Each structure stands twice: as structure tokens, then as C-alpha cells.
């Protein structure tokens, strides 16, 4: 058997990189624990508290009649926002794709706009528009319109950039301008995918529209907040079960519809 020292060792660069990565992660986690005050004791006691609390969540089905109207409003908010947001996203989709944009400056502006839109979460939009427009379904719709634009424009422009460039060139060679080229060579190629994305965004919007009510943007979330503030945990439980069922249902519908598309 050879002496340990004579064994070939992995190259130095690799070892240094591995060590640095480990050190970086270790430092990040130490900092994270310090900054957030998170520890394992809190984890365990938190989990215990959670399950104790969960035990109290026995649904009270007599709350159902109160639940329906805001539940329907939640779905309406998601639906209206998905449609308006999708329409508004379309120009951004084509301006933010390198193969269909008008010029490099517009491309850059559209992409930057997209990056900013995408960095703002649904609930933040909602809180912002509740402050601007007041409580109710309106700020919810406006918030989700912006949210939809961010999500859809990103997915859409990735799709447009991946299309077959042949037809684009053929139409350009035939003397068609940018808009006509988009309508004839791009839209047919991306339409099915886009519709499937819109369904997917609707799915996300239903989930989002449930929670934005918690900051006052209408729908079932607002009722949930009221029950929570009055410590009406049986009502809370009923809402949670209903939300669960509706989200599952809409997800199921969306998955089914998307499978039909492609």
C-alpha cells in the first residue's frame, strides 16, 4: 500500500473553490441565524404551537352563506385582472423580444420595465394600490393586472424569442412591415403556448387573489382577515377548507384545459 502522502490529490484550484463555497455558505447561515433570531428551539416550539393551534381549526359550516359572495368576488378579481393584464402584456411581449422589437433602445426599455414589474410580488402591488385607491376589489384588480403583466410578458417574450426565424425572414423579404410580420409569422407560432400561459397565470391569480384580501384588496381574504381579528377560528377554518377546494378545482380545470391545447 502506498503512503498516504504519495496518493495523487485533487487539483488545488478545485479544492480552493470547494472550500470557498463551503465557507461562503457557512458564513451566510451564521449571519442568517443571527439576523433573524431563528433557532432550533424556536422551530420546535413553533411547530408544537402550530399543531396545537391547528387543532382548534374546526370548520363551522354555518359560515358558508357568508363565504360565497366574497369567494365569487375573489374569482372575479382574478378573471378580470387576467384578461386586462394579458391584453396589456402583449405589446410588452413583442417590444421585449429581440426578434420583434422596433429598435435596441425600445428593446432595452421594455426589458427593464419587465424586470421591474417582475420583481414586485402580488401582495406588494395590492398593498400599494389599497393605499392609493382605498379598500375593496378595485385595488385588487389593478394590483393583479400589474402582476399579470410581469409574469406573462416574461414568459411570452421567452416564447417569441424561441420561434422559427424562417417565416419572419420570408415575410420581411415579401415587403411586410413589423406589425404584419408579427401578426402573420409570430402570432400563429406562439398563440397556443400563449393561451396556455394565460391559463397558468389565471391559476396563479386565483391563489394571489385569495391572499391580497388580507391587505384589504377585496375578496375572500378580506373576510378571512375579519374572522382572524375577531378570533373566530371556526370561521377561519371553514374559509381555509373552501379556499383549498376552490384552488384545487381551478388548478385541475387549468391543467385539463392546457393539456387539451397542446
Amino acid at each position, binding site marked *: 500500500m502506498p503512503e498516504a502522502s504519495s496518493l495523487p490529490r485533487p487539483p488545488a484550484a478545485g479544492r480552493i473553490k470547494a472550500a470557498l463555497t463551503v465557507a461562503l455558505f457557512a458564513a451566510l447561515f451564521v449571519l442568517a441565524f443571527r439576523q433573524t433570531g431563528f433557532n432550533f428551539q424556536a422551530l420546535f416550539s413553533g411547530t408544537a404551537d402550530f399543531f396545537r393551534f391547528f387543532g382548534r381549526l374546526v370548520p363551522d359550516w354555518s359560515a358558508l352563506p357568508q363565504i360565497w359572495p366574497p369567494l365569487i368576488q375573489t374569482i372575479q378579481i382574478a378573471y378580470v385582472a387576467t384578461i386586462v393584464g394579458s391584453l396589456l402584456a402583449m405589446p410588452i411581449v413583442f417590444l421585449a423580444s429581440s426578434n420583434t422589437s422596433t429598435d435596441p433602445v425600445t428593446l432595452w426599455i421594455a426589458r427593464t420595465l419587465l424586470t421591474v414589474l417582475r420583481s414586485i410580488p402580488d401582495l406588494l402591488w395590492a398593498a400599494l394600490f389599497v393605499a392609493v385607491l382605498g379598500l375593496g376589489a378595485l385595488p385588487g384588480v389593478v394590483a393583479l393586472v400589474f402582476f399579470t403583466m410581469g409574469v406573462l410578458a416574461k414568459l411570452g417574450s421567452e416564447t417569441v424569442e424561441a420561434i*422559427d426565424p424562417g417565416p419572419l425572414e420570408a*415575410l*420581411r423579404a*415579401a415587403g411586410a*412591415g413589423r406589425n404584419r410580420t408579427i*401578426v402573420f409569422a409570430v402570432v*400563429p407560432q406562439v398563440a397556443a403556448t400563449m393561451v396556455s400561459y394565460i391559463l397558468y397565470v389565471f391559476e396563479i391569480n386565483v391563489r394571489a387573489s385569495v391572499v391580497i384580501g388580507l391587505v384589504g384588496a377585496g375578496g375572500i381574504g378580506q373576510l378571512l382577515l375579519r374572522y382572524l381579528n375577531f378570533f373566530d377560528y371556526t370561521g377561519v377554518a371553514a374559509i381555509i377548507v373552501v379556499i383549498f377546494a376552490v384552488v384545487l378545482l381551478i388548478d385541475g380545470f387549468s391543467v385539463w384545459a392546457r393539456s387539451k391545447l397542446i
Partner: protein
Amino acid sequence: MAHIRFNDVEVVYRTGLKALKGVTLEIPRGQFVVVVGLSGAGKSTLIRTVNSLVVPTKGSVTVNDVNVTASRGGALRRARSDIGMIFQTFNLVKRSSVLRNVLAGRLGDLPAWRGVLGAFPREDVAYAHDCLARVGIPEKAFVRADALSGGQQQRVGIARALAQKPSVMLADEPVASLDPPTSHAVMSDLKRIAREDGITTIVNLHFIDMARDYADRIIGMRDGVVVFDGTPDEATDAVFEEIYGRPLESKDLRGA
């Protein structure tokens, strides 16, 4: 009077590669020109300067005495709508119907709102059907383009170019993706239509026998320079060996 005129055309790509080194040619109206040369000789580049898909870095191309090279925006689009183009890979919108693909050829002459809405006048629709009939596939109008064979797809490509009612037709290796019998069928369709409508045509081909079969005039290119310009009779095997810079091989023939 020359229909297409290349005036000392030079193309330098952004990579620094000089693909055309000062080409000067005059092509009279109605001539059927075949361009031959090895891969990389600059055939595609030459053809693409005619509709400004590649813009010459020096010199200019005129069609009907209109300087295409200097045209921009609307003027360029008008010039292009008079020039049909056929592609090796057909470049059809596969998910659209054959008819819609052919109608795309009418876009250049359409008012903006009609183009964007796809609201073609009845005459245009009728004309698109006619074009399909002329390439021999009138029954395929409402079939999706991806359901056609390669030869049929290239016929749609020809019909689309034809729908432009062009005076010039460009074809960049239109039969390279097809089998020999289909190649001949497509080439004779192209030639017949060019003859009937008096369309000036430039075709890039790899195959010597096809060039001789169909051309009124053969132009040989090598390294961005025109090294031969003459009739099919003058284009002997020795001339082709000169153009290709090597002895002829069986792959230079498509066969019948």
C-alpha cells in the same frame, strides 16, 4: 435595358469576412439565371443583396432602376413586394393554413389595418387560390402547412412568392431539401411560371446537371468573385472544374 443591375457590390460581414468582392452584373428582364459555386462562395449573399436582406457595404443593386440598396422603410418594403423569394427550408408558418401562408405574399400591397386584421379583399383570396392552382396543389388550401410533404411545402413557398405578383423571383437553393424527382418537378414548375409571367429569376443551385437543364444563363462564383458568366452550352465540365477549383464528383449531379 437591364432589369437587375449589380454595381460593384461588395459585402463585408461583421465578422470581417469579405463575402462579395465587387460584383458587377446586368440581368435583362425575363432571364432565368442560375448561380453556381462551392459552399461559401457567396451565392446566398449575392441573392440577398437584391432585396436588401443583406445590405452591401459598398456599391448598390438596382431593380427596375430603383436603387434597392439605398431604400429604407416604406420604400424598401415597396421594392421588396415586387421581389418574390423562395427559401431552401421553405420558411412557412407551419401552424397556419396553406392559404394563409400564400396570402402573406399579398401583405406588402395591403392597407395597414387590413394587414393587421388579416382582412384580405376577395380578389386577393381568389388570387391566392389561383397561385395554388398554378403550382398544382389547389386542393390543399385549407390544410395546415405542416401536414404537407417537402415538395408540396416548397410549392406553397412558390405560390406565396407568386402571390406578390413579382417582377423578380429569387430562389436560394430551392430544391436542396428535396429528393431528385421532386427537385425536377419543382424546378420545372418554377421555370414554367417564370416563363409564362416573364419574371426575372435568380436561382442558386448546387447541381451542375440541373443548372444546365434549367438556366438561360449560368453565373459561376468563387470566393466572392464572378468567375464564369455564360450560356449552359458554354458551361462545360472543364468550366465547372474551374469554378469549383477541383475535379467534378458524383455529388455535383442531382441525377434524374
